[in-house]
Structure formats: C-alpha cells, structure tokens
C-alpha cells in the first residue's frame, strides 16, 4: 500500500500571520517547522566546524612544519620539502572550494538553478557513486532566489536521503516549469519506508524537505512503502515575474570549431 501525505498551503507563509495560524498551518506545525530549520542550521555549522578543525586545521599545521623545515635546510636541499608543501596547498585550495560550494552553491546566484543542479549531481555522484538520471524542461529561466534555493535544497536533501537509506545505484530527478509552477520529482526504486513511522520519528530529512516547500508557499507529497521505492513531488509557485536569461550573449563560442 502506497501512502501519501499531503502538505498544502495556498500562498507564502511569510506574507501575513493570521490569528493563531500561519495561512492554514496550525501554530504547533509552524513552530516545529521553525525548530527544524534551526536544527538544520546548527547541524550544518557542526559539520563545517569539524571540517575546519579536522581537515583544514590539520593541513595548515603540517604546512607550517614543512615550511619551518625548509627554512632550516640549505638552500639547495629545499626542493622536496617545498614540493610537498605545494601539493598540500593545492589540496587545501580544492577543499576550501568544495566547502564553500557546499555551503552556498555560488552558481545558483551567478548562473541560476539548472547549472547549480548539474553541479550538485556531478558532485553527488562522485561522492556516493549513485548515478543521477536528470530530465528537465523549461529551466532556462531565472527563478527568484527563494524558489531557486528551495528547489536546490529539496533536491539535495532528497538525494541525501537516497544515499543514506535507499540502497540503490541510480536515482531519477525530473524538473520542469510552466509559467506558474516549478515542478520537481525525485524518485528511487530502493528500500522505501513506512511513512507513518517516519512521520512519528520526526525524520529530519523529510521534515526539512517539507519545510522548504511550505516556506515558499509550495506543495509537497511523499509516496513510499517498504520495498516500493520513494517518490518525492514538489510544486513550487513561481511567484514573481520571470526574467529571461540575459539576452544577446556572444555567440563566439558556438561559432568556433563546431
């Protein structure tokens, strides 16, 4: 039996508070949503603090030792030590780059949702060895930052769940938009789970996904059952006017060597 839970809201909850309710959401649900978001933030900070301390901090200590060693060596003997220091610096550069993109995918702000998602899938697949089959339509427009980040985080969190629980080697992501709505679906054919239990456990992954959708006035459903895989569907309203991607780009690239 596939179970379906609905989370609905008609418009953005940020608009205006209604006595005791936020646009149809009971106060306790709203509070638990807020609590979840704070927890997510704290979890993120914990991860960053650990990475900074364990990896960047350690590498910097080693780097410092290597450099003091090099200073004490005769000038013609420093090659190997400096070479080691240089490769450590390269490692550090790529780690900082990775962490910074993890925190906030810059391409989302600079280039929009589609490049950010493509980057996410590439990085996800290389870390988890789970292949992401991605189909999309109508994503070449600029979404508002709120919708962009909500969509990105929903996909990211859903894929994290796939990696943690589903036991599959492939997931499928569909994303498309018409003039009013951005649709997202994340599917896997993995283990699935019992929705009622997950709801009772306060499963943070699913709660975060719900929270993201609700905060932008969206709709979200999760379909799953043990042994039947999981499908997460989100519909996010594209609230403000859609800006077309910058027109009149140079076609220099397209015209050369092709």
């Amino acid at each position: 039996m596939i179970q379906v839970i609905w989370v609905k809201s008609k418009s953005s909850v940020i608009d205006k508070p209604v006595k005791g309710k936020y646009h149809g959401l009971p106060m306790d649900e709203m509070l638990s949503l807020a609590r979840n978001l704070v927890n997510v933030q704290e979890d993120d900070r914990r991860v960053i603090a650990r990475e900074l301390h364990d990896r960047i901090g350690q590498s910097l200590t080693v780097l410092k030792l290597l450099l003091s060693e090099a200073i004490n060596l005769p000038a013609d003997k420093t090659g190997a030590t400096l070479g080691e220091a240089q490769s450590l610096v390269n490692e550090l550069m790529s780690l900082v780059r990775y962490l910074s993109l993890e925190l906030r995918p810059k391409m989302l702000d600079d280039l929009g949702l589609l490049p950010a998602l493509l980057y996410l899938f590439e990085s996800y697949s290389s870390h988890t060895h789970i292949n992401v089959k991605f189909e999309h339509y109508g994503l070449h427009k600029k979404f508002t930052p709120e919708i962009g980040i909500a969509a990105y985080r929903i996909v990211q969190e859903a894929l994290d769940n796939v990696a943690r629980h589903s036991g599959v080697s492939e997931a499928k992501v569909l994303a498309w938009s018409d003039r009013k709505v951005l649709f997202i679906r994340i599917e896997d054919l993995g283990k699935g789970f019992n929705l009622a239990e997950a709801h009772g456990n306060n499963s943070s992954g699913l709660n975060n996904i719900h929270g993201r959708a609700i905060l932008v006035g969206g709709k979200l459903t999760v379909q799953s059952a043990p042994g039947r895989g999981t499908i997460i569907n989100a519909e996010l309203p594209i609230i403000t006017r859609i800006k077309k991607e910058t027109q009149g780009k140079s076609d220099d690239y397209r015209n050369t060597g092709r």
Partner: protein
Amino acid sequence: MITVTLADDHHIVRRGIKALLEAEPDMRVVGEAGCGMEASQITQKTKPDVLVLDLMMPDINGLKLISQIKKRSPDTAIVVLSMYGNDCYVLEALQAGAKAYVLKDSPQDEFVRAVREAAAGHRYLAPPLSDRAIEAYMLKTEDTKLDPYDMLTLREREVLHLLIQGSTNAEISEHLCISRRTVEVHRARIMKKLGLHGRTELIHYAILRGILPDGK
C-alpha cells in the same frame, strides 16, 4: 609586445601575476584594477591587448563584467583566471566573450600560454579544462523531452486515475472536495497534455501505460 591589464581584488595575487608576466620578454603589464568598475575603466583607458580577469570580483558579477568590457573595449582579449573550473562557469564566460580560461592552480606556463594565445586571437582552455567537457556540459543543459505523464501535476494525476477508474465529474468533484468546474478544467488539461481525445483513447492510454486499475 603584448600589453596586459590585471584585474583581481587581491593585491598579492596581482603582484604575483605581474612578476610572472614581466619575466616574459614580450609582455608588459600596463594597468591594474582591484574591482570590477576599475577593471572596466582601466581597460577602456589603457586599451591593452589582454585583460586578465578574476571571475569573482567584489562589486560586479564577473560574467556581466565580461560582456560589459567586450562592448566597451572589443579589441581587448579577456583571459579569465579563476578558482572555479566548473564547466558552467567556463561555458558562460566563453559565451559572454572571454577568449581563454585558466584555473588559479594551473601551472604557470599554462597561464602564460593562455595570455599569448588570447593575444593572438585564439581561444584557449588550460587543462584540465577542455572543449570536449564544455560541449558535453552544453548538451546536458539542453531541454529534455519529458514524458507527458510525468508533467501532470499531482492533482491532475489524481483526477486522471479517478477518470480511468470510471468516476464521473460529479464523483470526482465530491471525492476531491473541489468544484465540478475545477474538475472539468483539470480534465481538459490532462487530455491536452497527454494529447488524447475522448474516453476510448484515455482507456487505451491507461492500458499502454499500465495504469489501469485492478479488475478492469
């Protein structure tokens, strides 16, 4: 002589690049900028052969800056020097009008080569970047043909399943607590999206898709 202007918000980076380029007998640095605005102005003023530009400037989005500079100083070739080698940035930078793209952790001779190639009017991507990777990325950004069934909204899918089970508009309206008029609108949209006309085609579709309810 190749004249070069440098734009990077870190003084120490500019100093390094300058030292590197001026060690070449045929290169001369004629201007430096620490922000996007300055980069645009100084390029216009000094008219260098090449502008070396960091994509992440504090004041202006680097991609916008490229298009802006290309408009004002079309004869200056732009070499992007960036921390980020993700295909999306490389593609956007090239489309905006950059001639070459080099990563900050590329070997020095790659960087010098990029400046020289750009000055000669050639496009150059320093390894590990490659045309092939950029083209593969471009393909990924093209719209995919989606299955129309996948493009139905959640509500439309509910209505579709009820229609297939033989429910009437009135029954669906009651079941989903929506007005009959809304059911009609959903129904029309579903048929249009799936390209179907009439109930027979709907049933055929349901059989083909394997979404016919049990016992029917």
